[in-house]
Protein backbone atom coordinates (compact mmCIF):
# COMPACT_ATOMS: atom_id res chain seq x y z
CA UNK A 1 0.00 0.00 0.00
CA UNK A 2 1.18 3.48 -0.86
CA UNK A 3 0.21 6.11 1.69
CA UNK A 4 0.69 9.82 1.18
CA UNK A 5 0.11 11.40 4.55
CA UNK A 6 -0.49 15.17 4.73
CA UNK A 7 2.24 15.97 2.23
CA UNK A 8 3.00 19.59 1.40
CA UNK A 9 5.56 20.81 -1.09
CA UNK A 10 6.06 24.23 -2.57
CA UNK A 11 8.04 24.69 -5.78
CA UNK A 12 7.49 28.22 -6.94
CA UNK A 13 4.40 28.29 -9.12
CA UNK A 14 3.40 24.69 -8.39
CA UNK A 15 2.61 23.30 -4.99
CA UNK A 16 0.99 20.54 -2.98
CA UNK A 17 -0.88 21.50 0.12
CA UNK A 18 -1.60 18.89 2.74
CA UNK A 19 -2.28 16.07 0.30
CA UNK A 20 -3.36 12.71 1.73
CA UNK A 21 -4.08 9.64 -0.38
CA UNK A 22 -3.84 5.95 0.07
CA UNK A 23 -3.45 3.57 -2.82
CA UNK A 24 -4.15 -0.11 -2.24
CA UNK A 25 -1.85 -2.92 -3.31
CA UNK A 26 -2.35 -3.71 -6.96
CA UNK A 27 -4.76 -0.84 -7.40
CA UNK A 28 -4.92 1.22 -10.60
CA UNK A 29 -5.24 4.69 -9.18
CA UNK A 30 -5.74 7.73 -11.38
CA UNK A 31 -5.11 11.31 -10.35
CA UNK A 32 -7.16 13.61 -12.50
CA UNK A 33 -6.86 17.37 -12.68
CA UNK A 34 -6.28 20.33 -14.93
CA UNK A 35 -2.83 21.59 -15.86
CA UNK A 36 -1.15 23.25 -12.91
CA UNK A 37 -3.07 21.25 -10.30
CA UNK A 38 0.18 19.86 -8.88
CA UNK A 39 -0.16 16.36 -10.33
CA UNK A 40 3.40 16.03 -11.59
CA UNK A 41 4.92 17.35 -8.36
CA UNK A 42 2.85 14.78 -6.53
CA UNK A 43 4.33 11.97 -8.62
CA UNK A 44 7.85 13.35 -8.41
CA UNK A 45 7.53 13.67 -4.66
CA UNK A 46 6.34 10.06 -4.42
CA UNK A 47 9.26 9.02 -6.63
CA UNK A 48 11.72 10.82 -4.35
CA UNK A 49 12.83 13.54 -6.74
CA UNK A 50 11.68 16.16 -4.25
CA UNK A 51 11.47 15.74 -0.52
CA UNK A 52 8.24 17.07 0.95
CA UNK A 53 8.22 20.22 3.08
CA UNK A 54 5.87 18.42 5.47
CA UNK A 55 4.15 15.06 5.74
CA UNK A 56 5.17 11.45 5.21
CA UNK A 57 5.14 8.88 2.42
CA UNK A 58 4.83 5.18 3.26
CA UNK A 59 5.29 2.32 0.84
CA UNK A 60 4.17 -1.09 2.05
CA UNK A 61 4.58 -0.03 5.65
CA UNK A 62 8.06 1.44 5.16
CA UNK A 63 8.49 5.18 5.74
CA UNK A 64 10.25 6.31 2.55
CA UNK A 65 9.96 10.06 3.13
CA UNK A 66 13.72 10.43 3.47
CA UNK A 67 14.78 7.52 1.29
CA UNK A 68 16.57 8.65 -1.89
CA UNK A 69 14.84 7.96 -5.21
CA UNK A 70 17.31 5.27 -6.19
CA UNK A 71 16.42 3.16 -3.16
CA UNK A 72 12.65 3.48 -3.34
CA UNK A 73 12.01 0.96 -6.06
CA UNK A 74 9.32 3.13 -7.60
CA UNK A 75 9.14 3.27 -11.39
CA UNK A 76 8.50 6.48 -13.30
CA UNK A 77 7.19 7.00 -16.83
CA UNK A 78 6.81 10.47 -18.30
CA UNK A 79 4.60 11.81 -21.05
CA UNK A 80 7.66 12.55 -23.18
CA UNK A 81 9.11 9.07 -22.59
CA UNK A 82 12.53 10.35 -21.48
CA UNK A 83 14.28 7.44 -23.13
CA UNK A 84 18.03 7.98 -23.08
CA UNK A 85 18.72 8.92 -26.71
CA UNK A 86 22.32 7.71 -26.70
CA UNK A 87 21.33 4.16 -25.72
CA UNK A 88 19.53 1.44 -27.67
CA UNK A 89 16.11 0.31 -26.52
CA UNK A 90 17.79 -2.75 -25.02
CA UNK A 91 20.28 -0.62 -23.07
CA UNK A 92 17.48 1.70 -21.97
CA UNK A 93 15.44 -1.18 -20.57
CA UNK A 94 18.49 -2.74 -18.95
CA UNK A 95 19.69 0.60 -17.51
CA UNK A 96 18.29 0.08 -14.02
CA UNK A 97 19.46 -3.51 -13.70
CA UNK A 98 22.95 -2.40 -14.69
CA UNK A 99 22.78 0.23 -11.92
CA UNK A 100 22.15 -2.67 -9.55
CA UNK A 101 25.16 -4.43 -11.07
CA UNK A 102 23.10 -7.44 -12.01
CA UNK A 103 24.67 -10.30 -13.94
CA UNK A 104 24.69 -9.55 -17.74
CA UNK A 105 22.95 -12.81 -18.62
CA UNK A 106 20.27 -12.09 -16.01
CA UNK A 107 19.85 -8.57 -17.43
CA UNK A 108 19.45 -9.94 -20.97
CA UNK A 109 16.78 -12.37 -19.83
CA UNK A 110 14.87 -9.74 -17.87
CA UNK A 111 15.06 -7.20 -20.69
CA UNK A 112 13.75 -9.78 -23.13
CA UNK A 113 10.91 -10.70 -20.78
CA UNK A 114 9.93 -7.08 -20.31
CA UNK A 115 10.17 -6.34 -24.05
CA UNK A 116 7.97 -9.37 -24.77
CA UNK A 117 5.37 -8.10 -22.33
CA UNK A 118 5.25 -4.77 -24.18
CA UNK A 119 5.53 -6.33 -27.66
CA UNK A 120 8.72 -4.47 -28.55
CA UNK A 121 11.20 -7.36 -28.83
CA UNK A 122 11.79 -6.50 -32.46
CA UNK A 123 12.90 -2.96 -31.51
CA UNK A 124 15.59 -3.83 -28.97
CA UNK A 125 18.52 -2.83 -31.17
CA UNK A 126 17.03 0.44 -32.36
CA UNK A 127 17.74 3.87 -30.94
CA UNK A 128 14.81 5.81 -29.41
CA UNK A 129 15.01 8.56 -32.02
CA UNK A 130 13.98 6.08 -34.72
CA UNK A 131 10.82 4.90 -32.92
CA UNK A 132 7.25 6.16 -33.11
CA UNK A 133 5.71 7.80 -30.03
CA UNK A 134 3.78 4.67 -29.11
CA UNK A 135 6.88 2.49 -29.44
CA UNK A 136 8.89 4.89 -27.33
CA UNK A 137 6.26 4.87 -24.62
CA UNK A 138 6.22 1.06 -24.60
CA UNK A 139 9.99 1.08 -24.20
CA UNK A 140 9.73 3.59 -21.34
CA UNK A 141 7.14 1.41 -19.59
CA UNK A 142 9.31 -1.67 -20.11
CA UNK A 143 12.28 0.17 -18.65
CA UNK A 144 10.32 0.90 -15.48
CA UNK A 145 8.65 -2.52 -15.22
CA UNK A 146 11.83 -4.52 -15.60
CA UNK A 147 12.81 -3.31 -12.12
CA UNK A 148 9.67 -4.95 -10.70
CA UNK A 149 8.79 -1.72 -8.91
CA UNK A 150 6.61 -1.71 -5.82
CA UNK A 151 4.69 1.11 -7.45
CA UNK A 152 4.64 2.42 -10.99
CA UNK A 153 4.03 6.13 -11.57
CA UNK A 154 2.73 7.26 -14.95
CA UNK A 155 2.79 10.99 -15.71
CA UNK A 156 0.30 11.60 -18.53
CA UNK A 157 1.63 8.53 -20.34
CA UNK A 158 -0.82 8.75 -23.23
CA UNK A 159 -1.12 12.49 -23.75
CA UNK A 160 1.60 12.88 -26.37
CA UNK A 161 0.20 10.11 -28.59
CA UNK A 162 -2.20 10.29 -31.51
CA UNK A 163 -5.75 9.06 -30.98
CA UNK A 164 -5.35 5.57 -32.39
CA UNK A 165 -2.05 4.85 -30.64
CA UNK A 166 -3.51 6.21 -27.43
CA UNK A 167 -6.42 3.76 -27.60
CA UNK A 168 -4.07 0.85 -28.22
CA UNK A 169 -1.72 1.76 -25.45
CA UNK A 170 -4.61 2.39 -23.07
CA UNK A 171 -5.80 -1.17 -23.62
CA UNK A 172 -2.20 -2.29 -23.23
CA UNK A 173 -1.90 -0.57 -19.86
CA UNK A 174 -5.00 -2.38 -18.66
CA UNK A 175 -3.55 -5.69 -19.83
CA UNK A 176 -0.16 -5.02 -18.20
CA UNK A 177 -1.80 -4.06 -14.94
CA UNK A 178 -3.82 -7.24 -15.06
CA UNK A 179 -0.75 -9.33 -15.89
CA UNK A 180 1.69 -7.85 -13.38
CA UNK A 181 -0.60 -6.72 -10.58
CA UNK A 182 1.65 -3.67 -10.10
CA UNK A 183 0.29 -0.81 -8.05
CA UNK A 184 -0.11 2.04 -10.51
CA UNK A 185 -0.58 5.75 -9.95
CA UNK A 186 -1.43 7.38 -13.26
CA UNK A 187 -2.01 11.07 -13.72
CA UNK A 188 -4.00 12.54 -16.55
CA UNK A 189 -6.52 15.16 -17.50
CA UNK A 190 -8.35 12.77 -19.78
CA UNK A 191 -11.61 11.07 -18.76
CA UNK A 192 -11.51 8.17 -21.15
CA UNK A 193 -8.45 6.89 -19.34
CA UNK A 194 -10.35 7.01 -16.07
CA UNK A 195 -13.23 4.86 -17.25
CA UNK A 196 -11.10 2.32 -19.00
CA UNK A 197 -8.37 1.97 -16.40
CA UNK A 198 -9.06 3.31 -12.95
CA UNK A 199 -10.15 1.39 -9.90
CA UNK A 200 -10.30 4.69 -8.07
CA UNK A 201 -9.76 8.32 -8.96
CA UNK A 202 -8.57 11.38 -7.08
CA UNK A 203 -9.39 14.82 -8.40
CA UNK A 204 -6.75 17.47 -7.81
CA UNK A 205 -7.22 21.19 -7.97
CA UNK A 206 -4.76 23.93 -7.01
CA UNK A 207 -2.43 21.59 -5.14
CA UNK A 208 -5.22 19.92 -3.18
CA UNK A 209 -6.99 16.59 -3.50
CA UNK A 210 -10.65 17.62 -3.65
CA UNK A 211 -12.39 14.25 -4.08
CA UNK A 212 -11.49 10.56 -4.11
CA UNK A 213 -13.76 7.74 -5.25
CA UNK A 214 -14.58 5.21 -7.91
CA UNK A 215 -14.97 6.66 -11.42
CA UNK A 216 -18.73 6.16 -11.10
CA UNK A 217 -18.85 8.08 -7.82
CA UNK A 218 -16.80 10.95 -9.13
CA UNK A 219 -18.77 11.08 -12.33
CA UNK A 220 -22.21 11.00 -10.77
CA UNK A 221 -21.70 12.33 -7.29
CA UNK A 222 -19.28 15.24 -7.42
CA UNK A 223 -18.77 16.97 -4.09
CA UNK A 224 -18.02 20.46 -5.34
CA UNK A 225 -18.63 22.85 -8.20
CA UNK A 226 -15.07 22.30 -9.36
CA UNK A 227 -15.40 18.53 -9.60
CA UNK A 228 -18.87 18.77 -11.14
CA UNK A 229 -17.61 21.17 -13.79
CA UNK A 230 -14.47 19.14 -14.38
CA UNK A 231 -16.31 15.85 -14.91
CA UNK A 232 -18.80 17.48 -17.25
CA UNK A 233 -21.92 17.79 -15.11
CA UNK A 234 -23.50 20.61 -17.04
CA UNK A 235 -26.58 21.18 -14.91
CA UNK A 236 -25.49 22.79 -11.69
CA UNK A 237 -28.51 24.34 -10.03
CA UNK A 238 -28.14 26.47 -6.94
CA UNK A 239 -30.89 26.06 -4.37
CA UNK A 240 -31.84 25.51 -0.80
CA UNK A 241 -31.80 21.93 0.38
CA UNK A 242 -33.57 20.22 3.22
CA UNK A 243 -33.00 16.97 5.07
CA UNK A 244 -35.97 15.25 3.37
CA UNK A 245 -34.01 15.17 0.11
CA UNK A 246 -35.73 18.02 -1.69
CA UNK A 247 -34.15 21.19 -3.00
CA UNK A 248 -35.92 24.42 -3.79
CA UNK A 249 -34.49 25.85 -7.02
CA UNK A 250 -36.36 29.02 -7.96
CA UNK A 251 -39.97 27.91 -8.26
CA UNK A 252 -39.04 24.28 -8.71
CA UNK A 253 -38.88 21.66 -6.02
CA UNK A 254 -36.47 18.93 -7.01
CA UNK A 255 -36.32 15.55 -5.33
CA UNK A 256 -32.70 14.46 -5.04
CA UNK A 257 -30.88 11.33 -3.96
CA UNK A 258 -29.51 12.90 -0.80
CA UNK A 259 -30.73 15.56 1.58
CA UNK A 260 -28.50 18.36 2.82
CA UNK A 261 -29.98 21.40 4.53
CA UNK A 262 -28.90 24.92 3.59
CA UNK A 263 -27.42 26.40 0.44
CA UNK A 264 -26.64 23.57 -1.95
CA UNK A 265 -25.90 22.79 -5.56
CA UNK A 266 -27.76 20.09 -7.48
CA UNK A 267 -25.71 18.30 -10.11
CA UNK A 268 -27.60 16.57 -12.92
CA UNK A 269 -25.77 15.04 -15.87
CA UNK A 270 -27.24 16.24 -19.18
CA UNK A 271 -27.63 12.68 -20.50
CA UNK A 272 -29.73 11.65 -17.47
CA UNK A 273 -32.59 13.92 -18.45
CA UNK A 274 -35.46 12.61 -20.57
CA UNK A 275 -37.04 15.12 -22.96
CA UNK A 276 -40.48 14.78 -24.55
CA UNK A 277 -43.13 16.86 -26.25
CA UNK A 278 -45.86 14.68 -24.72
CA UNK A 279 -46.52 14.94 -20.98
CA UNK A 280 -44.43 12.46 -19.02
CA UNK A 281 -45.89 10.40 -16.15
CA UNK A 282 -44.22 11.12 -12.86
CA UNK A 283 -43.49 7.54 -11.67
CA UNK A 284 -41.39 8.89 -8.80
CA UNK A 285 -39.41 11.11 -11.15
CA UNK A 286 -38.95 14.85 -11.18
CA UNK A 287 -41.06 16.19 -14.03
CA UNK A 288 -40.61 19.77 -15.16
CA UNK A 289 -42.30 21.79 -17.89
CA UNK A 290 -40.36 24.21 -20.07
CA UNK A 291 -39.64 25.58 -23.52
CA UNK A 292 -36.78 24.74 -25.88
CA UNK A 293 -34.45 27.70 -25.77
CA UNK A 294 -31.82 26.61 -28.31
CA UNK A 295 -30.38 23.57 -30.01
CA UNK A 296 -26.69 22.91 -30.60
CA UNK A 297 -25.45 19.94 -32.62
CA UNK A 298 -22.24 18.50 -31.19
CA UNK A 299 -20.88 15.65 -33.31
CA UNK A 300 -23.02 12.54 -32.84
CA UNK A 301 -24.92 14.22 -30.03
CA UNK A 302 -27.26 17.17 -29.85
CA UNK A 303 -27.43 19.52 -26.90
CA UNK A 304 -30.83 21.00 -26.21
CA UNK A 305 -31.21 23.95 -23.83
CA UNK A 306 -34.57 24.10 -22.09
CA UNK A 307 -35.85 27.08 -20.15
CA UNK A 308 -37.91 25.86 -17.19
CA UNK A 309 -37.46 28.87 -14.96
CA UNK A 310 -33.86 27.71 -14.73
CA UNK A 311 -31.94 26.61 -17.79
CA UNK A 312 -31.54 22.83 -18.20
CA UNK A 313 -29.00 21.33 -20.59
CA UNK A 314 -30.06 18.01 -22.08
CA UNK A 315 -27.93 15.76 -24.28
CA UNK A 316 -29.71 13.58 -26.87
CA UNK A 317 -28.45 11.22 -29.52
CA UNK A 318 -28.86 12.64 -32.99
CA UNK A 319 -31.36 9.92 -33.82
CA UNK A 320 -33.47 10.61 -30.71
CA UNK A 321 -33.36 14.31 -31.47
CA UNK A 322 -34.45 13.91 -35.09
CA UNK A 323 -37.30 11.54 -34.23
CA UNK A 324 -38.75 13.96 -31.72
CA UNK A 325 -38.00 17.00 -33.87
CA UNK A 326 -37.37 19.57 -31.13
CA UNK A 327 -37.14 23.18 -32.26
CA UNK A 328 -36.63 26.42 -30.32
CA UNK A 329 -39.92 27.61 -28.78
CA UNK A 330 -41.44 24.10 -28.47
CA UNK A 331 -43.19 23.29 -25.23
CA UNK A 332 -41.47 20.26 -23.69
CA UNK A 333 -41.47 18.08 -20.59
CA UNK A 334 -38.30 17.10 -18.77
CA UNK A 335 -38.00 14.10 -16.47
CA UNK A 336 -35.14 12.80 -14.33
CA UNK A 337 -34.92 10.36 -11.46
CA UNK A 338 -34.09 11.62 -7.97
CA UNK A 339 -31.00 9.36 -8.10
CA UNK A 340 -29.74 11.42 -11.04
CA UNK A 341 -29.84 14.58 -8.94
CA UNK A 342 -26.86 14.74 -6.60
CA UNK A 343 -26.72 17.42 -3.92
CA UNK A 344 -23.64 18.93 -2.28
CA UNK A 345 -23.30 21.97 -0.07
CA UNK A 346 -22.38 24.99 -2.16
CA UNK A 347 -21.47 27.18 0.74
CA UNK A 348 -22.85 30.14 -1.17
CA UNK A 349 -26.08 32.05 -1.11
CA UNK A 350 -28.83 31.08 -3.50
CA UNK A 351 -28.82 33.28 -6.56
Amino acid at each position, binding site marked *: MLVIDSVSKSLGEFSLSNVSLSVEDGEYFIVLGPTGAGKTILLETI*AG*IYSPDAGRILLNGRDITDVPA*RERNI*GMVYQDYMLFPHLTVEANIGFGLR*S*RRADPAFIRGKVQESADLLNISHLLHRYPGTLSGGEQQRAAIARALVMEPEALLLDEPLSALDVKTRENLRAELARIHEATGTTIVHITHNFEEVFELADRVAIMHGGNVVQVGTPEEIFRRPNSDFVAGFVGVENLLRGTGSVDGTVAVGNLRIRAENGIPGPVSVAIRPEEILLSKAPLPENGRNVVFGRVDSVRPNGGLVRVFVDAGVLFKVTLTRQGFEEAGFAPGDAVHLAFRPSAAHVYPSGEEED
Partner: protein
Amino acid sequence: MSRRDTSRFRTATVLVALLIAAFIVLVLLGVVTHSPASVLIECLLSEEIQFAVRLSIITSVVSTLLCILVAVPVAYALARYTFPGKSLMNMVMDIPMALPPLVAGVGLLLFFGVSPIGKSLAAAGLTFVFTPLGIIMAQFFVNLPYMLRVTRSTFQGVNPRYEYVAKTLGCTDAQAFWRVTLPMSSNGLLAGSVITWSKGIGEFGAALMLAGATRMKTETLPLSLFLNMSTGKLEYAIAAATILIMISVVSLYAFERYGGATHVY
Protein backbone atom coordinates in the same frame (compact mmCIF):
# COMPACT_ATOMS: atom_id res chain seq x y z
CA MET B 1 4.81 49.05 -49.84
CA SER B 2 4.90 47.94 -53.44
CA ARG B 3 6.52 44.76 -54.61
CA ARG B 4 9.10 46.77 -56.49
CA ASP B 5 10.23 48.60 -53.32
CA THR B 6 10.50 45.34 -51.41
CA SER B 7 12.72 43.82 -54.05
CA ARG B 8 14.89 46.92 -54.25
CA PHE B 9 15.37 46.71 -50.47
CA ARG B 10 16.21 43.06 -50.83
CA THR B 11 18.79 43.79 -53.50
CA ALA B 12 20.39 46.51 -51.40
CA THR B 13 20.77 44.37 -48.26
CA VAL B 14 22.03 41.32 -50.13
CA LEU B 15 24.51 43.53 -51.95
CA VAL B 16 25.98 44.83 -48.68
CA ALA B 17 26.28 41.23 -47.45
CA LEU B 18 28.06 40.21 -50.65
CA LEU B 19 30.48 43.13 -50.44
CA ILE B 20 31.43 42.33 -46.85
CA ALA B 21 31.89 38.63 -47.60
CA ALA B 22 34.08 39.51 -50.56
CA PHE B 23 36.12 41.89 -48.41
CA ILE B 24 36.78 39.19 -45.80
CA VAL B 25 37.81 36.64 -48.40
CA LEU B 26 40.11 39.16 -50.13
CA VAL B 27 41.85 40.04 -46.89
CA LEU B 28 42.51 36.40 -46.03
CA LEU B 29 43.53 35.47 -49.57
CA GLY B 30 45.95 38.39 -49.53
CA VAL B 31 47.78 36.80 -46.61
CA VAL B 32 47.75 33.27 -47.90
CA THR B 33 48.90 34.21 -51.41
CA HIS B 34 51.46 36.85 -50.47
CA SER B 35 54.52 34.61 -50.56
CA PRO B 36 55.30 32.34 -53.48
CA ALA B 37 54.42 28.74 -52.60
CA SER B 38 58.05 27.65 -52.41
CA VAL B 39 58.94 30.37 -49.91
CA LEU B 40 55.83 29.63 -47.87
CA ILE B 41 56.69 25.93 -47.66
CA GLU B 42 60.28 26.69 -46.76
CA CYS B 43 59.16 28.93 -43.91
CA LEU B 44 56.59 26.42 -42.73
CA LEU B 45 59.33 23.82 -42.50
CA SER B 46 61.80 26.13 -40.75
CA GLU B 47 62.86 25.29 -37.22
CA GLU B 48 61.31 28.42 -35.77
CA ILE B 49 57.84 27.92 -37.27
CA GLN B 50 57.95 24.22 -36.42
CA PHE B 51 58.75 25.15 -32.83
CA ALA B 52 55.87 27.63 -32.77
CA VAL B 53 53.45 25.05 -34.16
CA ARG B 54 54.49 22.47 -31.58
CA LEU B 55 54.32 24.91 -28.68
CA SER B 56 50.98 26.26 -29.85
CA ILE B 57 49.46 22.82 -30.13
CA ILE B 58 50.76 21.62 -26.77
CA THR B 59 49.73 24.73 -24.86
CA SER B 60 46.32 25.01 -26.50
CA VAL B 61 45.48 21.32 -26.01
CA VAL B 62 46.50 21.44 -22.36
CA SER B 63 44.63 24.69 -21.71
CA THR B 64 41.54 23.31 -23.46
CA LEU B 65 41.63 20.17 -21.33
CA LEU B 66 41.91 22.35 -18.23
CA CYS B 67 38.96 24.44 -19.41
CA ILE B 68 36.86 21.28 -19.91
CA LEU B 69 37.87 19.93 -16.53
CA VAL B 70 36.82 23.11 -14.78
CA ALA B 71 33.87 24.09 -16.97
CA VAL B 72 32.00 20.79 -16.66
CA PRO B 73 31.38 20.86 -12.88
CA VAL B 74 30.96 24.64 -12.77
CA ALA B 75 28.54 24.67 -15.71
CA TYR B 76 26.56 21.82 -14.18
CA ALA B 77 26.22 23.67 -10.88
CA LEU B 78 25.11 26.82 -12.69
CA ALA B 79 22.70 24.94 -14.95
CA ARG B 80 21.05 22.68 -12.37
CA TYR B 81 21.24 24.11 -8.88
CA THR B 82 20.12 27.28 -7.23
CA PHE B 83 22.39 28.71 -4.58
CA PRO B 84 23.04 32.10 -3.06
CA GLY B 85 25.19 34.36 -5.21
CA LYS B 86 24.57 32.31 -8.34
CA SER B 87 23.75 35.17 -10.67
CA LEU B 88 26.71 37.20 -9.40
CA MET B 89 28.93 34.17 -9.93
CA ASN B 90 27.57 33.79 -13.44
CA MET B 91 28.54 37.36 -14.20
CA VAL B 92 31.98 37.15 -12.63
CA MET B 93 32.83 34.10 -14.68
CA ASP B 94 31.98 35.91 -17.89
CA ILE B 95 34.22 38.88 -17.12
CA PRO B 96 37.43 37.50 -18.68
CA MET B 97 35.54 37.19 -21.96
CA ALA B 98 34.66 40.89 -22.01
CA LEU B 99 38.03 42.02 -20.70
CA PRO B 100 40.76 43.09 -23.15
CA PRO B 101 43.26 40.17 -23.07
CA LEU B 102 46.09 42.59 -22.30
CA VAL B 103 44.34 43.60 -19.11
CA ALA B 104 43.80 39.96 -18.18
CA GLY B 105 47.51 39.47 -18.85
CA VAL B 106 48.53 42.31 -16.55
CA GLY B 107 46.33 40.85 -13.81
CA LEU B 108 47.83 37.40 -14.28
CA LEU B 109 51.34 38.83 -14.27
CA LEU B 110 50.77 40.62 -10.99
CA PHE B 111 49.02 37.60 -9.46
CA PHE B 112 51.73 35.10 -10.40
CA GLY B 113 54.64 37.54 -10.22
CA VAL B 114 54.21 39.50 -7.04
CA SER B 115 51.29 38.14 -5.01
CA PRO B 116 52.07 35.80 -2.10
CA ILE B 117 50.09 33.02 -3.80
CA GLY B 118 52.09 33.42 -7.01
CA LYS B 119 55.34 33.52 -5.11
CA SER B 120 54.59 30.39 -3.17
CA LEU B 121 53.56 28.62 -6.38
CA ALA B 122 56.87 29.67 -7.94
CA ALA B 123 58.72 28.45 -4.85
CA ALA B 124 56.95 25.11 -5.30
CA GLY B 125 58.24 24.94 -8.86
CA LEU B 126 55.19 26.26 -10.70
CA THR B 127 56.59 29.30 -12.49
CA PHE B 128 54.12 31.00 -14.79
CA VAL B 129 55.96 34.25 -15.49
CA PHE B 130 57.87 34.18 -18.80
CA THR B 131 57.47 30.42 -19.21
CA PRO B 132 55.37 28.15 -21.49
CA LEU B 133 53.32 27.35 -18.38
CA GLY B 134 52.29 31.01 -18.43
CA ILE B 135 50.97 30.58 -21.96
CA ILE B 136 48.75 27.74 -20.78
CA MET B 137 47.53 29.81 -17.83
CA ALA B 138 46.81 32.83 -20.06
CA GLN B 139 44.83 30.74 -22.54
CA PHE B 140 42.94 29.03 -19.73
CA PHE B 141 42.02 32.29 -18.03
CA VAL B 142 40.84 34.06 -21.17
CA ASN B 143 39.02 31.14 -22.79
CA LEU B 144 37.34 29.46 -19.83
CA PRO B 145 34.22 31.65 -20.23
CA TYR B 146 33.66 30.34 -23.76
CA MET B 147 33.83 26.72 -22.66
CA LEU B 148 31.69 27.55 -19.65
CA ARG B 149 28.95 29.23 -21.64
CA VAL B 150 28.68 26.47 -24.22
CA THR B 151 28.75 23.77 -21.53
CA ARG B 152 26.23 25.51 -19.32
CA SER B 153 23.75 25.99 -22.10
CA THR B 154 24.30 22.40 -23.26
CA PHE B 155 23.45 21.10 -19.78
CA GLN B 156 20.46 23.43 -19.59
CA GLY B 157 19.27 21.89 -22.84
CA VAL B 158 19.09 18.43 -21.26
CA ASN B 159 15.74 17.98 -19.55
CA PRO B 160 16.42 17.20 -15.87
CA ARG B 161 13.74 14.52 -16.07
CA TYR B 162 16.25 12.27 -17.81
CA GLU B 163 18.21 12.42 -14.57
CA TYR B 164 15.06 11.88 -12.50
CA VAL B 165 14.32 8.70 -14.41
CA ALA B 166 17.93 7.57 -13.99
CA LYS B 167 17.62 8.09 -10.24
CA THR B 168 14.44 6.03 -10.03
CA LEU B 169 16.46 3.38 -11.87
CA GLY B 170 19.07 3.25 -9.13
CA CYS B 171 21.55 6.03 -9.99
CA THR B 172 23.12 8.45 -7.56
CA ASP B 173 23.31 12.10 -8.66
CA ALA B 174 26.85 11.55 -9.94
CA GLN B 175 25.93 8.35 -11.78
CA ALA B 176 22.95 10.02 -13.42
CA PHE B 177 25.32 12.73 -14.62
CA TRP B 178 27.94 10.31 -15.97
CA ARG B 179 25.58 7.84 -17.55
CA VAL B 180 22.94 10.19 -18.90
CA THR B 181 23.58 13.94 -18.92
CA LEU B 182 27.23 13.85 -19.98
CA PRO B 183 26.78 11.49 -22.94
CA MET B 184 23.70 13.45 -24.00
CA SER B 185 25.85 16.61 -23.98
CA SER B 186 28.68 15.21 -26.07
CA ASN B 187 28.00 17.32 -29.16
CA GLY B 188 27.84 20.54 -27.17
CA LEU B 189 30.99 19.68 -25.27
CA LEU B 190 32.77 18.85 -28.51
CA ALA B 191 31.69 22.15 -30.08
CA GLY B 192 32.78 24.02 -26.95
CA SER B 193 36.15 22.29 -26.93
CA VAL B 194 36.78 23.15 -30.57
CA ILE B 195 36.01 26.82 -30.12
CA THR B 196 38.04 26.95 -26.90
CA TRP B 197 40.98 25.25 -28.56
CA SER B 198 40.94 27.51 -31.59
CA LYS B 199 40.73 30.61 -29.42
CA GLY B 200 43.55 29.20 -27.31
CA ILE B 201 45.82 28.67 -30.28
CA GLY B 202 45.25 32.28 -31.33
CA GLU B 203 45.65 33.78 -27.84
CA PHE B 204 48.09 36.69 -27.92
CA GLY B 205 47.56 39.58 -25.52
CA ALA B 206 47.35 37.81 -22.19
CA ALA B 207 50.04 35.31 -23.15
CA LEU B 208 52.35 38.15 -24.23
CA MET B 209 51.96 39.84 -20.84
CA LEU B 210 52.39 36.75 -18.69
CA ALA B 211 54.77 34.60 -20.73
CA GLY B 212 56.58 37.29 -22.67
CA ALA B 213 57.77 37.00 -26.27
CA THR B 214 61.02 35.08 -26.22
CA ARG B 215 62.06 33.55 -29.52
CA MET B 216 62.15 29.75 -29.39
CA LYS B 217 60.96 29.76 -25.78
CA THR B 218 57.49 31.20 -25.47
CA GLU B 219 57.03 31.65 -29.20
CA THR B 220 53.58 30.38 -30.14
CA LEU B 221 52.16 31.01 -33.62
CA PRO B 222 50.62 34.42 -32.85
CA LEU B 223 53.77 35.46 -30.98
CA SER B 224 55.88 34.26 -33.88
CA LEU B 225 53.76 36.36 -36.20
CA PHE B 226 54.29 39.35 -33.94
CA LEU B 227 58.06 38.82 -33.48
CA ASN B 228 58.74 38.24 -37.16
CA MET B 229 56.62 41.21 -38.22
CA SER B 230 58.52 43.51 -35.87
CA THR B 231 61.90 42.27 -37.11
CA GLY B 232 60.90 42.55 -40.75
CA LYS B 233 60.89 38.82 -41.52
CA LEU B 234 57.62 39.13 -43.35
CA GLU B 235 57.62 35.70 -44.97
CA TYR B 236 57.90 33.99 -41.55
CA ALA B 237 55.09 36.12 -40.24
CA ILE B 238 53.00 35.15 -43.26
CA ALA B 239 53.69 31.45 -42.64
CA ALA B 240 52.46 31.73 -39.06
CA ALA B 241 49.41 33.70 -40.19
CA THR B 242 48.57 31.14 -42.86
CA ILE B 243 48.51 28.32 -40.32
CA LEU B 244 46.33 30.37 -37.99
CA ILE B 245 43.86 31.12 -40.78
CA MET B 246 43.57 27.45 -41.68
CA ILE B 247 43.02 26.47 -38.06
CA SER B 248 40.34 29.14 -37.65
CA VAL B 249 38.42 28.12 -40.76
CA VAL B 250 38.53 24.42 -39.98
CA SER B 251 37.50 24.86 -36.34
CA LEU B 252 34.71 27.24 -37.26
CA TYR B 253 33.40 24.56 -39.60
CA ALA B 254 33.64 21.90 -36.87
CA PHE B 255 31.97 24.21 -34.36
CA GLU B 256 29.02 24.86 -36.67
CA ARG B 257 28.81 21.21 -37.53
CA TYR B 258 28.37 20.16 -33.89
CA GLY B 259 25.76 22.80 -33.32
CA GLY B 260 27.91 24.96 -31.09
CA ALA B 261 26.71 28.22 -32.57
CA THR B 262 23.31 27.71 -31.00
CA HIS B 263 24.94 27.66 -27.57
CA VAL B 264 27.33 30.59 -27.40
CA TYR B 265 25.14 33.64 -27.35
